[in-house]
């Protein structure tokens, strides 16, 4: 998952970025003013935007309005030092999804960030049960048919992203965009190695199982291709279709 932080206070942005990278393992980009934030947010690779209100050049509310005006549905978490229900109501009405008042608790911020990303993908519970897999996003553990699968952090992040989008072909580029921030060297073969390892580990958990991740040559990866659509519990979920449309 990739998060954009728009915050003009350098030290706060540093701390937030470090916490989000170290904790839930998100990729984090940082913009230090409203206009730069708007430029970055135009890229659909973000799963969450953490937005400060008082920003130079373009304030948080202005950025939020621009974002929603171009039908960008990315969840937005506002950081505000302002008191008063009025400004909070105004923010929520302008399309913000949640807010935190400064000085906030880092743990709470991470929990809210996770919840907003989850909701943005259409899942309500932090434990995702799909295709015989149980992915606990809090502990970052994976079980397949009850068997524990030991994954590296990157493998876990790939699975977490794919599991939100079953039966959709996810390109390598999309995976890269959502898992790595701009500070990372982009090498697509890194992804290939990680996906290959992930597939092996998942398939090893269940004897004689069909491969759960299918490689579409030149197009990307697809999760759970072998399941008939009518048996798939996530097929009826409209939220997943909506996210798919947005990313396209």
């Amino acid at each position: 998952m990739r998060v954009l932080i728009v915050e003009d206070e350098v030290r706060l942005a540093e701390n937030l970025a470090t916490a989000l990278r170290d904790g839930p393992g998100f990729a984090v980009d940082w913009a230090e003013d409203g206009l730069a934030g708007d430029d970055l947010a135009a890229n659909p690779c973000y799963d969450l935007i953490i937005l400060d209100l008082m920003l130079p050049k373009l304030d948080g509310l202005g950025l939020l309005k621009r974002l929603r005006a171009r039908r960008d549905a990315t969840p937005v978490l506002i950081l505000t030092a302002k008191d008063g229900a009025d400004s909070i109501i105004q923010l929520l009405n302008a399309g913000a999804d949640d807010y935190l008042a400064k000085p906030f608790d880092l743990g709470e911020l991470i929990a809210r960030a996770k919840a907003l990303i989850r909701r943005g993908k259409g899942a309500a519970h932090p434990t995702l049960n799909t295709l015989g897999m149980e992915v606990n996003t809090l502990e970052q553990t994976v079980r397949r048919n009850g068997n524990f699968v030991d994954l590296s952090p990157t493998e876990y992040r790939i699975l977490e992203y794919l599991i939100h989008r079953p039966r959709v072909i996810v390109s390598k580029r999309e995976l890269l965009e959502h898992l790595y921030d701009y500070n990372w060297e982009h090498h697509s073969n890194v992804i290939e190695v990680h996906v290959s390892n992930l597939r092996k580990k998942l398939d090893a958990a269940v004897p004689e199982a069909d491969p759960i991740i299918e490689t579409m040559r030149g197009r990307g990866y697809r999760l759970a291709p072998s399941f008939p659509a009518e048996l798939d519990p996530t097929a009826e979920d409209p939220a997943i279709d909506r996210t798919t449309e947005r990313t396209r």
Partner: protein
Amino acid sequence: MKLRIQPRSIAFRLILAVLGIELLSSVLVVALSYGYERHIHFHAFDVMLHGRVDSILGAVQEADDPGENVMLEQADLHVPPEDIYEVWDENGRLLGRSANWKDAPDWKTDGGAPPAHPWGDYLLISTNGHHYRLLRIQGSRTIDPRENGGGKVRKVTVIYGSQTGHVWHIIHQAVQFYAIGSLALLLVTGPLIAWLLHRGLLPLRELAALASQVSVDSWHFSPPDSARTTPELAPLTHAIEAVLQRLERSFTQQKTFVSDAAHELKTAVAVQKSSLQLLNMKRRTLQEYQAGLERCVADSLRLESLVADMLTLARAETPAPNAEAQPTTDLNHCISQVVTQMESIASLRNVKVAIPDLDPKAAPLNVAMHAEDCRLLVSNLLLNALQHSPSESTVEIRVTTNPGSNPPVAVLVLQDHGDGIPGEALPHVFDRFYRGDPSRTRNTGGTGLGLAICKALVQKARGAIQIASQPDAGQPDQGTAVTVLLPLAS
């Protein structure tokens, strides 16, 4: 009609004044009417007395005696029975007297004397239990006018008096009528005036009602037309409007400052809190802990300088008490001190500080400012100039005096050759928490209060501060010049 009349209220005082004047005029009317009525009625009374005296004279007859005397024929006399009279002849002989005059004085000598005035003179006496007004007049009676070519003229003195009681009664009644009439008018006009005043003061009450609706949350004040068009209320209305506008402006400024200050403080606290929580998120190595703690200390120092600057600003904005003696500081000495203190920072940034005009032997240039304020002002301005100066440039400090201005001032100019300030930012540089380039000043640790503190310090010393900037690259005068005018100590 609801009348709330309190002592000292304008309505109360006006009503009191009008009623007082009315009362005074009533008293005057009563006094005048008393004088007038008295004059009229006593005049008529005197005319009547003359008439009666004439009747008495008519009753003076020739006596049938050899001395050719006269006598008073009282039988033919028809005068009111309560009147009194007596008649004397020129020899002091009493010719007759009314029967009801019991204790008549014996005017043998002076009673018979002719009155000083040909029309008679008047006496007031009290007899028979009544007050009488007496007319004494001399008349004459000619005896036997046909004999000896003209007869003999006998002079008689008549004293005639009539009771004044009923005249006084009439006068009193007339005066009483006027007094009661005035009192009744007073009673009627009192409430009438109160009511008229109540109506007349309606615009004032409307104005007060609207003005009382103004509060911290709602500054809107639209004065009623009645108040705007009333000549007496128009200045008050304008004054209220002006005061409210100024109040709202300063209140908004204050609110903005508090909200900005809260934002800055909360952000600084958020940085600290997140730094500590980040450090505590997982087990770390000793080196990581050390690095984290160093960052936390740096964050605390920033918070500390922010709080210190806010306190300095609050202190600088507190006006000096008037009773205090005028402070004096040598500006030249202050500048050389600050430049010495800042040498390390200047050399760190590789910037030269030039003071071309400063002569250490020159006489002190005393400005009316506290030494600490002066040091703070100069060091803030110099630090600002240093922070915006590129490497290997020069910051010039020039001090001149302008003794011709009123009051005579010292002129301090700090010129740097940095990037300058864009025109749209220039009017705001003295605003609190304003940052010309937010990311840079945050990185350099500025609190956004430095120039606001300078302005407050200069204003406290009753001076002026201006800033001019040439942001265009390549211009010879590129950079920013801050000019400070400080009144000289007298």
